[in-house]
């Protein structure tokens, strides 16, 4: 009897950590490492912030820096944000990396509208923020991509260093954690706020 019983309890010990010398009187030990208490809101924002999928497109020189950030040297994937998607339907984050021309601005707006909720926009570099070097004499450059789409994070620079872009991503993650599940900013965004005459 004793032999077979011992084997059984050994197996049980392996498969069920609850039986393993846990003191049921101490709350932390009662469930071992099986249960995490959190709110639904925190759980969802944790999931969203930890798996940001940026959209794979670049517009000018800043895009080179974005590629460097995603490559091994700086490894954006450490922060869960480097699974670049080629389709707007699969992406959460639009990194506007480069000069936005009027011709491209309308296409960016279309791409933004094709992204599913929740979606975020990071404007990278002077060009995407206010036209950058082209703000005075660029006849074809939009003076800030926020005239077309709502921007969550601005990362200044010409181009920003990869560290700056990484900080922008970290700031975005902070922002995502602060947002409440049922109050998504982008859903109550009013496109008329930035450009009074925009309509499709």
């Amino acid at each position, binding site marked *: 009897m004793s032999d077979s019983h011992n084997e059984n309890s050994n197996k049980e010990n392996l498969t069920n950590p609850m039986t393993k010398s846990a003191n049921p009187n101490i709350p932390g030990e009662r469930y071992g490492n099986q249960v995490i208490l959190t709110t639904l809101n925190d759980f969802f924002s944790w999931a969203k912030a930890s798996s940001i999928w940026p959209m794979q497109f670049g517009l000018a020189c800043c895009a080179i820096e974005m590629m460097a950030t995603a490559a091994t040297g700086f490894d954006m994937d450490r922060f869960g944000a480097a699974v670049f998607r080629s389709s707007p339907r699969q992406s959460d984050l639009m990194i506007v990396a480069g000069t936005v021309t*009027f011709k491209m601005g309308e296409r960016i707006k279309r791409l933004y509208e094709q992204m599913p909720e929740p979606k975020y926009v990071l404007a990278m570099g002077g060009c995407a923020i206010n036209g950058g070097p082209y703000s005075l004499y660029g006849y074809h450059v939009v003076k800030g991509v926020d005239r*077309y789409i709502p921007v969550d994070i601005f990362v200044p620079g010409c181009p920003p260093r990869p560290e700056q872009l990484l900080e922008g991503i970290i700031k975005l993650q902070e922002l995502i954690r602060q947002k409440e599940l049922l109050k998504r900013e982008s859903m109550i965004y009013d496109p008329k706020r930035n*450009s009074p005459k925009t309509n499709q």
Partner: protein
Amino acid sequence: MTLNEIVQKLISKFPDNILDSNPEGVEPFIKVAPSDIFDIIKFLKEDPEIDLSFLNLITGVDWNQDNRIEVVYHLSSVAFQSHKLAIHAFLDRKAPRIPSICGLYGAANWHERETYDLLGVEFEGHPDMRRMLLPDDWEGHPLRKDYQFPEEYHGIKWA
């Protein structure tokens, strides 16, 4: 052949159409009458001794005060390293028109479209004379000296 000989040969072949030439200098050039640009470039390309078979670029200059627009063709040769020539043609600024050389060089297609886009030069006989870079409904040609910046584009303010 030296560039001098090339220019002499060209002048003997087209005596009336070569308006000016400078085969010396950093950027050797000839100035031609725009109506015969196709024949002249064809000759330069197909003559085996000259062999300017490579089109480097086509571009343009707006001479606002003279009321002219200049189109510049830069040609060079793959076989003869020293053969290179710029061909200038002056057009009327109000309605600049010049024959297309798409039939000679495939690369001319986009260069001519770009020159049309930015300076408004019409290339006659071009298979696809549309704007190259700017949107189709853009107004004006931005490299002209008197170009007015747009107020807005599709409701988005410029400034």
